């Protein structure tokens, strides 16, 4: 019951390699099917995101022997030369494979530390493989554990709570003022990539209404259509600033497009309702003195970048706590694995001993013709009892072993000493 993992990620492979080795749903299904059909793996799961492609499996034989076969399979499956792939692939076995997956689910192995999307991707990959019947008891337990780790890390630590991009930091700051944005309105000035990112974040946070203002009406129409917004004519400040709670400015302009008198007039018209202005333009789009107005909050790109940096540091400080959770669940999984293995091992040993006993009695009884059938049955029963007793005590001692490492070592020693590869459970 060993576990093997072969894969690559953003740290080991450049994007050109990652994109060639990624799996879509159909490919993941086909790969899992082939791996089991060829007898390379008994249970299998493919986890493929934009930053990683990993194959988890339970091999019929040793995981160390299986890993090179898996590498070759990946190379053939994606038609990538093995020399290219071999420098990017990593192999993990058993404890390390478990730890790796749990770190992935926790967001500790992500490009953006603590990102939330990976947990959903792990969940989806598991659901898909489970539906296809590609997983079994080991991978089911492993991935359920991984989902639990991801959930715990997100609720018990702050690894994923702080915004890590300028756009998301701005939107989160707006929530510090208004609370949930579900009933709020936003105005976006400009139609560039940054505006698009902010709009996307605002939509994710459930902004009620979105207005788009851009010099190019065509681009404004395009953005409004894409994100379900309303277009406001460029320069119609008095109308445009009356209703929004959040204003995002990211336009190319030499002079600030939002002057103090314009905002002051708007604030008077809107009854001093709080206004959050996100100035992402360089040079700045909003006159800095606007921030002196009552109930107006202005944040520029530098302010938001500084917040992102603070958040990055804060996330990093959460790593030890997240790792502690990962460690706790790795031990829990290995303990389960050892217990399951122990049951299988005891059963295999019992079967082997009975077989030996049967052969032994058969050969010896040939010379003891004077014994009746009852005597023979009695002898067999006595030998069975003795063998059971011999097996029971070490099994109980092993089951009661508190130290996980020792327990696993003993299980392995017992298996290696008494069972051949063919007989191993």
């Amino acid at each position: 019951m060993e576990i093997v993992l072969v894969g690559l990620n953003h740290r080991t492979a450049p994007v050109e390699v990652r994109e060639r080795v990624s799996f879509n749903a159909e490919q993941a299904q086909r790969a899992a099917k082939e791996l089991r059909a060829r007898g390379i793996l008994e249970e299998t799961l493919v986890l493929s995101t934009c930053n990683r492609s990993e194959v988890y499996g339970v091999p019929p034989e040793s995981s160390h022997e299986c890993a090179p076969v898996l590498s070759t399979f990946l190379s053939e499956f994606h038609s990538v030369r093995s020399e290219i792939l071999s420098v990017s692939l990593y192999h993990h076995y058993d404890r390390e494979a478990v730890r790796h997956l749990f770190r992935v689910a926790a967001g500790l192995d992500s490009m953006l530390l603590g990102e939330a999307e990976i947990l959903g991707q792990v969940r989806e990959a598991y659901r898909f493989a489970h539906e296809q019947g590609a997983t079994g008891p080991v991978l089911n337990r492993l991935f359920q554990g991984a989902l639990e780790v991801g959930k715990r890390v997100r609720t018990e630590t702050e690894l994923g709570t702080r915004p890590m991009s300028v756009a998301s930091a701005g939107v989160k700051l707006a929530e510090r003022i208004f609370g949930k944005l579900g009933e709020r309105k936003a105005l976006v000035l400009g139609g560039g990539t940054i505006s698009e990112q902010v709009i996307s974040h605002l939509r994710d946070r459930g902004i009620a209404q979105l207005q788009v203002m851009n010099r190019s009406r065509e681009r404004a129409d395009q953005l409004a259509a894409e994100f379900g917004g309303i277009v406001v004519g460029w320069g119609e400040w008095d109308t445009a600033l009356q209703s929004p709670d959040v204003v995002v400015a990211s336009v190319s302009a030499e002079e600030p497009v939002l002057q103090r008198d314009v905002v002051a007039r708007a604030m008077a018209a809107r009854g001093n309702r709080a206004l959050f202005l996100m100035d992402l333009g360089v040079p700045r789009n909003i006159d800095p003195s606007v921030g002196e107005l009552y109930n107006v909050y202005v944040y520029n790109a530098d302010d938001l970048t500084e917040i992102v940096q603070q958040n990055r540091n804060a996330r990093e400080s959460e790593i030890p706590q997240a790792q502690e959770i990962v460690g706790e669940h790795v031990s829990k999984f290995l303990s389960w694995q050892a217990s399951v293995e122990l049951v299988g091992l005891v059963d295999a040993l019992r079967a082997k001993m009975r077989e030996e006993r049967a052969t032994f009695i058969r050969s010896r009884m040939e010379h003891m013709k004077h014994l009746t059938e009852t005597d023979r049955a009695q002898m067999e029963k006595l030998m069975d009892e003795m063998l059971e007793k011999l097996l029971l005590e070490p099994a109980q001692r092993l089951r009661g072993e508190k130290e996980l490492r020792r327990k696993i070592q003993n299980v392995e020693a017992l298996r290696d000493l008494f069972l051949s590869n063919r007989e191993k459970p």
Partner: protein
Amino acid sequence: MNHLFPILTAIAYLLSFVLYVRFLSTGNRLTGRLGTLLLGLGLVAHYFALLERSAGLHQVPYHDLYGSMSLFGWLLALTYLALEVYHRQRSVGGFVLPFIVVFFLAAHLAPPDRLSPPAVHGPAFAFHVTLSILAYAAFALSFVLSLIFLAEERLLRRHKVGEVVWRLPPLELLAQMSQSSVLVGLVSIAIGTALGFVTVDRLEGQHSYFDAKYVTTLLLLVLYAVYFFLARTTAWRGARASRLCIFNFVIVVLSFTVVNLYLSHSHRYF
């Protein structure tokens, strides 16, 4: 006298305070929930402590300074817990608990009361005092919330978004919580004051209706009503309303101290 309930109350409140502070610094939800649970347990233990003491002395809790302060602490905890549950926001617990703990402990450490007990009795008087104390507890809570609002608003305006700002309630929610609290206070003080006048009306002999305490209480009623109105209007919403709320609470404190001790003839504690 049995000290079990007061000790349990003190332990529960102190632990709750520690957990609320830890929740504020770590954001761990479980810690926050435990803080709320301990506050609830503290409230129950505090209730039994008050009940036991009242039963032992055959007096109402506000009979002396200890009882009045302890009842104030209990009502403050109760109002806060109701507000926390209503607004689903526990990150201000760490700021409110010190007031509750101080009032509870001060009640125990206060010197023996040498003032004569109140001359009046009866249900109307009991409700008058209890509702007035509840109102002051609610005003104290709105004061704390307004202070937090001003601090958070200042930090946000100065772009000093540190650890705590991410965990404090949003500004608009703080303003709403403060208004909810003032509303509880306003309703309580309005009914409490009316019952006070009913009590005075029933007393035999000559009683002045122009005691300094009556005037101050009516002034407070007006000031908090003005706050409640202005906080929802154009020019005052936000920091200005919070400043007014803090100013109003200063008048509450003056009403307790200067007015009670030097100007009023009919009020001792609240």
